[in-house]
């Protein structure tokens, strides 16, 4: 029996996997993109905030198909409710706004629609896309390729590939197949819960609420969600509290300085996830294999934002592999290290720096000092002059 053969097989069709597929297929490589889910993006584990710059930079057309609401800036709150507002409609009124000829700073997207849109882009670029297909394992072949075992609906299928790409999220199994230690330290994974609610007003700003009392080790957020809805959530570091995220969110709704604002809220959706406030994975490659997106922990360790970093990582992986596959070199671990080097240079080194900043904050033992530092860091992070604003 002959097995279908591809240049690359990508497991997981989120922003990172689909973007990598779009670039590779667009450059003429035989690309198979698989995802185990029947509907991409679901269950939702993400608040869905992404900058307009991120979409433009990574060649994702801006579309009402996935946008839930436009964003024009930030509100960063300290524990007592004092806020720094960074509203681009006021900072640069000629440029930013909802009026004709002006633009938004970013968007809150519906991950179900966004991920489907990105899959469509990959598919239109020429990638083969299989849903309801899970990865079962991979093994190296003597000819320098690898064999990937998949299950598509009920059928087990083996395919051959030159490179396997693990884009299977934070809970990456692909990385573990290769023996990469992908699990995250308990002190660096925020346990997150969010509600999509009705009857909570928002004003085009991403609101971020710091303070140990509300979200120990993380922060709380209130984001506009379109159609008059909002999403209210928070993430906590389990070692800093003996209560779970659900308890903290309930308390934030009922007891915080926003309790009047939230008093009439009605829950429409419940979502959660683990958000790494961690360093990037130290090794993101193995023989015939690389990892992208959450699987490689390409997540901003201060904000927990992962869409921009996933899209950018996908572009970097796609461009690197496009060159690499043409070279005809063997996709050994040694040779694929170039991917990680390219990623570090473009993005990773900055993320390491952010990680160090974040670590320094949470090393502070004094709670008040730590809260103040996190508030300042968040405020300066989103400031127009921030050196990080483009990650």
């Amino acid at each position, binding site marked *: 029996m002959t097995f279908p053969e591809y240049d690359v097989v990508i497991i997981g069709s989120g922003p990172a996997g689909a973007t990598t597929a779009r670039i590779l297929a667009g450059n003429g490589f035989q690309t198979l993109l698989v995802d185990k889910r029947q509907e991409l993006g679901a269950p939702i*584990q993400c608040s869905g905030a992404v900058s307009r710059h991120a979409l433009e930079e990574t060649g994702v057309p801006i579309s009402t198909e996935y946008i839930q609401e436009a964003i024009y800036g930030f509100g960063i709150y300290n524990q007592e409710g004092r806020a720094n507002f960074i509203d681009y409609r006021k900072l640069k009124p000629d440029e930013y706004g909802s009026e004709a000829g002006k633009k938004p700073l970013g968007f809150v997207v519906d991950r179900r629609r966004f991920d489907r849109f990105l899959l469509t882009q990959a598919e239109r670029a020429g990638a083969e896309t299989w849903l309801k297909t899970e990865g079962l394992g991979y093994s190296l072949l003597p000819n320098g390729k690898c064999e990937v075992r998949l299950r598509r609906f009920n059928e087990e299928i083996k395919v051959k590939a030159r490179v396997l790409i693990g884009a299977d999220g*934070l809970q990456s199994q692909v990385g573990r*197949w290769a023996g990469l230690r992908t*699990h995250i330290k*308990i002190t660096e994974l925020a346990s*997150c819960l969010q509600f999509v609610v009705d009857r909570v007003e928002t004003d085009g700003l991403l609101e971020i609420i710091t303070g140990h009392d509300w979200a120990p080790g993380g922060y709380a957020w209130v984001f506009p969600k379109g159609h008059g809805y909002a999403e209210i959530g928070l993430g906590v570091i389990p*070692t800093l509290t003996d209560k*779970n995220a*659900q308890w903290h969110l309930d308390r934030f709704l009922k007891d915080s300085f926003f309790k009047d604002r939230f008093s009439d809220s009605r829950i429409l959706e419940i979502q*959660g996830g683990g958000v790494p406030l961690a360093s990037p994975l130290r090794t993101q490659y193995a023989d015939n294999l690389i990892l992208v997106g959450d699987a490689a922990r390409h997540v901003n360790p201060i904000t927990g934002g992962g869409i921009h970093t996933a899209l950018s990582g996908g572009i970097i992986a796609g461009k690197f592999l496009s060159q690499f596959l043409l070279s005809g070199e063997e996709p050994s671990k040694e040779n694929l290290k170039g991917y990680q080097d390219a990623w570090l240079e473009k993005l990773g080194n900055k993320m390491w720096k952010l990680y160090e900043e974040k670590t320094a904050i949470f090393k502070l033992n004094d709670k008040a000092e730590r809260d103040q530092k996190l508030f300042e860091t968040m405020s300066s992070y989103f400031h127009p002059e921030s050196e990080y604003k483009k990650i």
Partner: protein
Amino acid sequence: MSSKTPVLFQIGWNACINCGACVAICPQEAGFISDFDTIAVDRPCDIACMLCEDICPVTTITHTEVHSAKAKK
């Protein structure tokens, strides 16, 4: 926190929000997962670090200890 006695995890499927945090934190090797993308519930965990229970946003992972005679069956 950690006990050396292997444990079998149980998940309250109604409360589970399918967030994947338990798998992300799990130090087990590949494949220690359930059909619903949680940590495995069909075989004992011999690490028994309980990090999955700690990370769960809705605290819906519990365990029972599996004593060796029983585990060998």
